[in-house]
């Protein structure tokens, strides 16, 4: 059903193979066939990787399932996100060919797609004992292994595989109308304004400075002296260069935000492709879209982004999404000193206390948090309850974004600090 097994034709095996002993397969043909199966499932398994795998089999004889698994995994997988898809393809390819002895013992992994219901191997069929000694995963772990996704892991992980497999379906679901020329140019203008106004920070890089008082730059001083050949050396100073802070956009794409999703997403797209901003969307789970949105063509970028997001117009797990962001990206450096823009109506299934706790964590990392809430303009709207009220104390600015005109307010609020700083410089 995933299109993985159909068309798989790299290997011919005799019936009745047992776990732990692989048939002798022509390695080059095997590598090429496996690469094709992986590519169909959405992994970037290029032909030269297949060549690597063939070379790898020269040094690691693929005589057991374990060896085959780890060798091809090291070669074909290029990021953690691909592990679940890889495992699924690996399992489906080897279904029937080998006993699916769960030699990884990794309980957090997804069920092998297409192979359930699966019967556990009998004790006699168990993995080779030598590798069991070496492999920590064969010991049962009470805790979820890396990532700590918790108990609900099987669900979303499974979704991810399906999302990879059926990109077209998602496109139908989301159906983005194409942007008009006018909308595109409006958006670009707006984004340019935002980009120009992100606050600065000092970087480690330096630039030449004519003013005395910076750091004496010996390298440049000597080079200048060499060039001019003069006896007197003119001292060259350097100053720390200033750089706009990183801009991170977190956009709510749950059902309640649907009327605004398309506009906000094109804002995200402009910011990513024009300003190297980082973009995430969330409803029940968090998805990083920076890569998908980096395409120059807005329509194509939006289509790719839609395909990559498994949960358009779902419920809202605001606290959970912020927690994911902080844990998986923010703490590692992405949010540190950054300007963070949250685009959400603040309606959430999570408890307000949770939202408040996660916002506090985000606040400790970020330089500035701007909240864009399109419902702010609605008559009688007051952010008194629920997630919005909980989040508000941690926001540096709270703006509306129900229209293009209103979004310019966002640019102003991002710019606010820079204007202040410039004024201070002038007067001080």
């Amino acid at each position, binding site marked *: 059903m995933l299109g993985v097994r159909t068309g798989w034709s790299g290997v011919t095996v005799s019936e009745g193979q047992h776990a732990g002993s692989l048939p002798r397969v022509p390695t080059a043909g095997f590598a090429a066939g496996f690469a094709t199966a992986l590519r169909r499932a959405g992994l*970037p398994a*290029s032909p*030269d990787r297949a*060549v*690597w795998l*063939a*070379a*790898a089999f*020269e*040094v*690691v004889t693929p005589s057991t399932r*374990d*060896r085959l698994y*780890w*060798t091809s*995994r*090291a*070669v074909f*997988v*290029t*990021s*953690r996100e691909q*592990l679940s898809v890889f495992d699924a393809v690996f399992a489906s390819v080897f279904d029937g060919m080998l006993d699916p002895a769960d030699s990884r013992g*990794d309980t957090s992994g997804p069920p092998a797609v297409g192979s359930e219901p699966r019967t556990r191997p009998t004790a006699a069929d168990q993995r080779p004992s*030598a*590798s069991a000694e*070496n*492999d*920590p*995963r064969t*010991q*049962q*772990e*009470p*805790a*979820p*292994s*890396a990532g*700590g996704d*918790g108990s609900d892991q099987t669900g979303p992980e499974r979704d991810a595989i399906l999302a990879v497999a059926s990109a077209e379906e998602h496109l139908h679901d989301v159906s983005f109308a194409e942007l008009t020329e006018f909308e595109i140019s409006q958006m670009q203008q707006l984004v340019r304004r935002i980009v120009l106004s992100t606050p600065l920070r000092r*970087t*480690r*890089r330096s630039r030449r400075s004519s003013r005395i008082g910076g750091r004496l730059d*010996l*390298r440049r*001083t*000597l080079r200048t002296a060499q060039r001019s050949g003069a006896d007197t050396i003119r001292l060259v100073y350097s100053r720390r260069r200033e750089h706009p802070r990183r801009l991170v956009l977190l956009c709510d794409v749950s059902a309640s935000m649907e009327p605004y999703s398309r506009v906000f997403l094109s804002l995200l797209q402009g910011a990513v492709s024009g300003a190297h901003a*980082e973009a995430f969307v969330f409803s029940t789970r968090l998805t*990083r879209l*920076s*890569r998908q949105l980096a395409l120059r063509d807005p329509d194509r970028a939006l289509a790719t982004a839609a395909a990559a997001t498994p949960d358009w117009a779902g419920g809202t797990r605001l606290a959970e999404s912020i927690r994911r962001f902080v*844990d*998986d*990206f923010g*703490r*590692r*450096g*992405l949010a540190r000193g950054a300007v963070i823009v949250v685009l959400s109506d603040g309606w959430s299934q999570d408890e307000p206390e949770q939202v408040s*706790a996660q916002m506090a*964590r985000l606040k400790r990392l970020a330089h500035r948090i701007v909240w864009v809430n399109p419902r702010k303009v609605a008559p009688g709207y007051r952010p008194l309850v629920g997630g919005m009220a909980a989040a508000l104390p941690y926001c540096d600015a709270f703006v509306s974004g129900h229209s293009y005109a209103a979004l310019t307010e966002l640019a102003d609020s991002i710019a606010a600090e820079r204007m202040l700083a410039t004024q201070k410089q002038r007067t001080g």
Partner: protein
Amino acid sequence: MTGPARAGAEDDVVQRVPDVAALTTALDGEDYLADLGLATAMFLAVRLPQPILLEGEAGVGKTEAAKALARVLDTPLFRLQCYEGIDAGESLYEWNHQRQMLGIRVAEARHSELDETDLFGEQYLLRRPLLRAIEHAGPRPAVLLLDEIDRADAEFEAFTFELLAEAAVTIPELGTIRATHPPIVILTSNRTRDLHDALTRRCLYHWIDYPGPARIAEIVRRKVPSSAEPLAVEVASAITRLRSLDLAKPPGIAEAVDWVSALAVLGVDRLDPTSVKMTWGSVLKNRDDLEFAGARGADWLVGGDRE
């Protein structure tokens, strides 16, 4: 980068690392416990040879893996800690300008002739890790660790990889330096940004999972030989239990080692609620986590293994 043009590893390396099991044993001998997956991936990196990108949570031993590998091959480790704004002057080479100026003054004082070639001689060259790894004279290739490559700029990433693919550096004043033993390259990343396709295309990849309690206990025993054996086992299972909570900063292997060291210093040889209460601080380093775990209680943490 295309095809089996590379003739595999050098004979000396092949002899030291004949197969995956031998590498596992050798790493074990250096007190580094690698599971089959990591050992296979590192074996391929050494034997193909091909750069390898290691990822995993903080504290699962990415950097340690590179260090242990260098010890196994009995070869130097050159480590480049990446950061934003790192450039060629900090990673590859830089001229020692202060010394050059001094050289000029000395030559003037002695009224001796000074050529430009004198000023750009080897003695004025500051060698940074990339250059040193390429220049390494052998007999075996050096291990080059590019730590936290995701912190460097994308341009630096591209520059580094071009250099490593060529295994040669051109210094305008000196000429081209070509590696006689191209280094074994290990990269680590914390995923603060997406790495460039050009990089991932050229690397093997391994995600290091967090180890189970038995392995943690084994690591702890190796690192803190003075600790009593039951203590290591109890701490390992307590750490695993803590990791099952939804903590902001789940304790890692370093915390397990710290904790056992702390308990050993206090003269504790069995983990009990009292000793846990005294030593929370060496395991949990975040106020929210402390409150959260404290609410579950020290008894829960200690008593879980009697379930």
